[in-house]
């Protein structure tokens, strides 16, 4: 009886595990579709965030915590990651500059 209850408790997490394996499978398949680099990067990032979201919400059980915890943690992290996006103009400038090899 206890084992049956335990396996029923684990079922949602097994489903999430299959979802994460599916995310990894789609990522690998997309990699070998010869997509343009920008499109491939966008697709991989979206899938990575989907996988991370599943892991954080279900495995780390953030969805079962008080909403205050989610709103205290996630917006800060997203803000910090968003601020890091300011490096891309400089990276693209260097890419187009194409200095000769010394």
């Amino acid at each position, binding site marked *: 009886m206890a084992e049956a209850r335990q396996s029923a408790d684990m079922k949602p997490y097994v489903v999430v*595990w299959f979802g994460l394996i599916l995310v990894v499978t789609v990522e690998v398949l997309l990699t070998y579709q010869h997509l343009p680099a920008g499109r491939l990067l966008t697709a991989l990032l979206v899938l990575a965030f989907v996988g991370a979201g599943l892991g954080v919400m279900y495995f780390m059980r953030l969805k079962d915590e008080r909403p205050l915890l989610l709103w205290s943690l996630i917006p800060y992290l997203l803000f910090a990651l968003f601020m890091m996006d300011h490096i891309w103009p*400089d*990276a693209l400038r260097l890419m187009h500059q194409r200095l000769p090899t010394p």
Partner: protein
Amino acid sequence: MGESAVTVGAMHGAPMEPSPYAMQSKKLAMWLFIIADAATFGAILFAYGYLRVANPDWTRPFEFAPTIVNAIMMTVVLLTSSLTMVGAVRSAQAARKSASAGWLGVTLALGLVFTVLLLREWYVMIGAGWRLSRNPMGGSVLFGATFFGITGLHLVHVIAGVVALAVVAIKFNRDRLDAGHVETTGLYWHFVNVVQMFVFPLVYLMNAR
């Protein structure tokens, strides 16, 4: 609740207040650490992206076999270890000590499998001439720096997690730690596996041939 119950263990003049997050302090502390560490990994992945975009001669050395296959195996191993960690936490919360210790042992073993797979890959790459500042294929030397730096930082986290799992498994089995400690360690372990969800596509798949 009597005042003495509220102030037991508190310093003089400092009544204890309930947490607004309705969780133990160690769990909240672990969440705060995880967010800070996530920003750290974000920064190192952004730095990798910047260097990659800024260097037109970036090398993409990873063949499907064996490198990408190895990376897929590493990712699946870590994802499976997250599932077994959930089993450990739920067993601990149900006061099933031996079951929880068993699940923790399997999680620890999967962490060791990941470590062996990554170190084996490093051994092959170093044998082929890759270093932190050397590229045997003639492209940007920053490939080695970013690859070994990112995977090395992640590996340090995995090894620390393996050690923590061993300590928690032993002490929980001896009633010196409680289910809250297992859950808190589980949070850290799941975070390390969530990081792999970004390392795998950005560092391995984006550098596939």
